[in-house]
């Protein structure tokens, strides 16, 4: 390999066919005299622009497009050299850091010698060691293409905003399950907003047996084992639900505040009393109607109860998790869109309340397809305000454009699976912790279950990893029409005799 060109932080390296270098590989460009080395990552592999190559190719197709038959007598065996030159490649690399001795620095202000520097592949394992990606709380994500383990430090997820994204069926949920279970090993408190019930099997192995996390997984299904007592609700939380989830206008919200205060002062804050109070409240008929429609929405959600004993599970689970670590899975699978928003409004309000009062230290929140239940203003809250309370969010989505640009800008870690759509890649490439070229070039070619890890977890050295397998029960699979049994039945069905005598009898 020879150093060819440098422009900005892009470096071009001439590579020959016997040097097996691929996209994503790291190269070490050592300048012995300067006693320094550059670490560069290959983001694209192109054919070198060899002079005369066009003539060479045209020459082999002169006969109306068909290859001309012939024989070459090449006693000096020059032909392999021609092929060698023809197949030489240009590696487009991004400079990532400078190594001086055992120290890494992000400085790229110097230029190694073009004639004297030596270039070699830098094994990912060496890079991980140099960059000190490993920490005291290791989480093994999987293997790199060199078959070395990629282990990140759990503390690099702590206090961070993470995004897991990629197109469908590339392994996003699998990775988030891996991160959740790994965090549980370090006694972390995890809350999962589970849109499709995919995480409800986390406590079981693939063959349905209880696994090591069984006692740490708490699945809460709204209106079933997850209810809220009206008495326990804070006025602010219920108002947030009414205004943001149920879109209650301001005037009506003011009347509701009075009603709520009135009932609270009287000490009779129940669903029934709330309904009666709205009915008998001296207010404009339109306001009453607005309040009534929201009241019935609350009642019909089944999420609210007057029975305090029924409504203690969330806090119980969180406090249990606080001691030994645990994951509270909020199963939103069969919950309507409005009810989802009500539940999430309540949950986030509750978490903030617990965190503000230091009854909880911090929570790792995993939110799948958050645009389906998270109100607009929460996006900003999550990246600015909530992390100060101790809510560290990981967004999981296959529609990267549903996450706001400012979220990408502030994301600390991105776990990027395959995307082929130019628009999707464009959106992700706005992340501040990585350059657009790397995202676009590498993510496009990622095979399933391979993830490009970007950000602080890998000390800003983008690394491709094949996510390791996890022995947990898979839930939330796509329901298929052509299942095994169905296709078997249809293939065996006889067009002449659809029913047998035995079956009829």
């Amino acid at each position, binding site marked *: 390999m020879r150093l060819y060109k440098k422009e900005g932080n892009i470096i071009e390296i001439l590579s020959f066919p016997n040097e097996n270098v691929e996209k994503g590989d790291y190269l070490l460009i050592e300048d012995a005299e300067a006693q320094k080395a550059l670490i560069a990552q290959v983001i694209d592999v192109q054919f070198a622009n060899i002079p005369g190559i066009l003539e060479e190719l045209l*020459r082999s197709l002169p*006969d109306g497009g068909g290859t001309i038959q012939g024989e070459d007598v090449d*006693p*000096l065996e020059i032909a392999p050299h021609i092929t060698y*030159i023809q197949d030489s490649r240009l590696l487009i690399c991004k400079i990532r850091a400078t190594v001086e001795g055992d120290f890494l620095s992000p400085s790229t202000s110097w230029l190694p010698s073009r004639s004297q520097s030596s270039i070699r592949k830098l094994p990912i394992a060496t890079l991980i060691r140099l960059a000190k990606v490993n920490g005291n709380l290791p989480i093994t994500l999987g293997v790199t293409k060199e078959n070395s383990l990629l282990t990140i430090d759990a503390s690099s997820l702590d206090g961070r905003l993470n995004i897991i994204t990629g197109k469908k069926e590339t392994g996003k949920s699998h990775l988030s399950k891996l991160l959740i279970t790994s965090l549980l090993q370090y006694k972390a408190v995890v809350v999962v907003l589970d849109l499709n019930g995919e995480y409800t099997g986390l406590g079981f192995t693939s063959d349905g047996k209880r696994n090591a996390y069984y006692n740490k997984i708490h699945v809460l299904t709204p209106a079933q084992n997850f209810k809220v007592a009206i008495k326990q609700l804070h006025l602010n939380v219920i108002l947030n639900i009414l205004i943001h989830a149920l879109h209650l206008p301001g005037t009506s919200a003011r009347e509701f505040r009075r009603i709520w205060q009135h009932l609270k002062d009287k000490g009779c804050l129940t669903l029934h009393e709330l309904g009666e109070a709205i009915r008998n409240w001296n207010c404009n008929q339109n306001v009453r109607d607005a309040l009534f429609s929201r009241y019935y929405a609350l009642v019909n959600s089944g999420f609210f109860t007057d029975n305090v004993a029924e409504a203690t599970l969330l806090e119980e689970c969180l406090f249990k998790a606080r001691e030994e670590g645990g994951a509270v899975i909020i199963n939103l699978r069969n919950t309507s869109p409005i009810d989802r928003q009500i539940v999430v409004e309540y949950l986030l309000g509750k978490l903030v309340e617990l965190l503000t009062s230091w009854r909880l230290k911090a929570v790792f929140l995993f939110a799948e397809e958050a645009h389906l239940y998270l109100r607009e203003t929460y996006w900003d809250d999550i990246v600015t305000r909530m992390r100060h309370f101790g809510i560290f969010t990981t967004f999981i989505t296959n529609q990267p454009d549903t996450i706001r640009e400012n979220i990408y800008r502030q994301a600390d870690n991105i776990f990027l699976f395959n995307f082929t759509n130019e628009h999707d890649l464009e959106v992700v490439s706005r992340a501040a912790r990585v350059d657009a070229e790397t995202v676009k070039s590498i993510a496009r070619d990622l095979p399933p279950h391979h993830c490009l890890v970007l950000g602080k977890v890998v000390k800003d050295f983008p690394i491709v990893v094949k996510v390791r397998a996890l022995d947990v029960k898979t839930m939330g699979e796509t329901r298929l029409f052509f299942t095994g049994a169905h296709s078997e039945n249809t293939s065996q069905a006889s067009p002449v005799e659809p029913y047998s005598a035995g079956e009829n009898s």
Partner: protein
Amino acid sequence: MVIEQYTITATPKYNFPQNAIDTVLPQRLIELSIYSLKHVQNQAVQLKQQTIQQAVLSQETLVAQHPTPPVQPIPLNPKTEPTTIAAVDTSSIKLGETGRGIIIAVRGTTVWKRGRNYAYLRVGPLIFHITEENLQEIYKTLLKAYFPEQNPQGAPGFLQIPLRMANLLERWLQASLAKTMSNGIILFDGSLTAGTPDTPTQQLKEVLASARSMGNAVLAFTKVTTLRFNGCLLTEAFPAYRPPCLVEVANIKPKPPLTLLGEVYVAKLARGNYAFRLDVDRELPAQKRVEAVEKLLGNDLIVHGYPETLRLAHILCTFTANEVIAMQHFIQQRYRLKIIDRPDMHRLLFGPFGKGESHYETL
């Protein structure tokens, strides 16, 4: 002579009926190539700063002496009876300079068309390290090995050697073709003018005789001619004649020692005012000569008035920049030559007005 043991495969025979004449690859050429390169190990090499392709010049060296005006054009009717068309061309290039000499490469191609298919045999590239000491030896040894009857004249100088080595290979390819092919048309690049240092009369006569004895007709196309008629270039003198036709240019008196071994025509084979000087073996009867051109018309593609077979031969032997780099890579890797970058004095002194190395002094 001790030869480095390379895996040298014998040339496969042409895909033509064989006779008793040995047509194996010029073994001596390969031996000399390897031998000369062996003596270049670990030297410094200055790559040619402006690589200029040195294809065999098809510009004929004949000086016309008032050619007789032609009488009538000879109209041509393409004859489609199946005839094999074959063509030969060679190319040479200077790859670089060492402290003691130059490194050159030569390559030759034979292309033939039978039915609708073209096929080729390409010999080379053969690389030679030519020094003052071995120049005479290499050239004369080769000449003696392949044309033993010919009296070795003085070896060419450094400037001419790439061309002369290519000529030698070309003559050998032509001779092989003439001896192995039968009842076909053989196309040469250039003219049938003999008596020049690179085309001795005896050599060319032998080739033509061999071709005739096998029932072949030799046609030589010259792309650029200096022959003039009434002040006009011969190839531009007859714009009114409708193609395809031949215009006979009789009574050309070449200056001794030049000899014309072919009958000279202006060939207008296609529309578009493309005319070429065409030499056809003089020993063939006039009717056979015309018939040979008609067979060529009926059996080969004629693009811009030039036979496709000959065009392919030229294309296939020409060195591309990529191949030049590959050959330089080969000599660097195999013989551990150290590439040096000596400044180009023309560029250094005259900047953008420097004409490069092509204008440097004659050695």
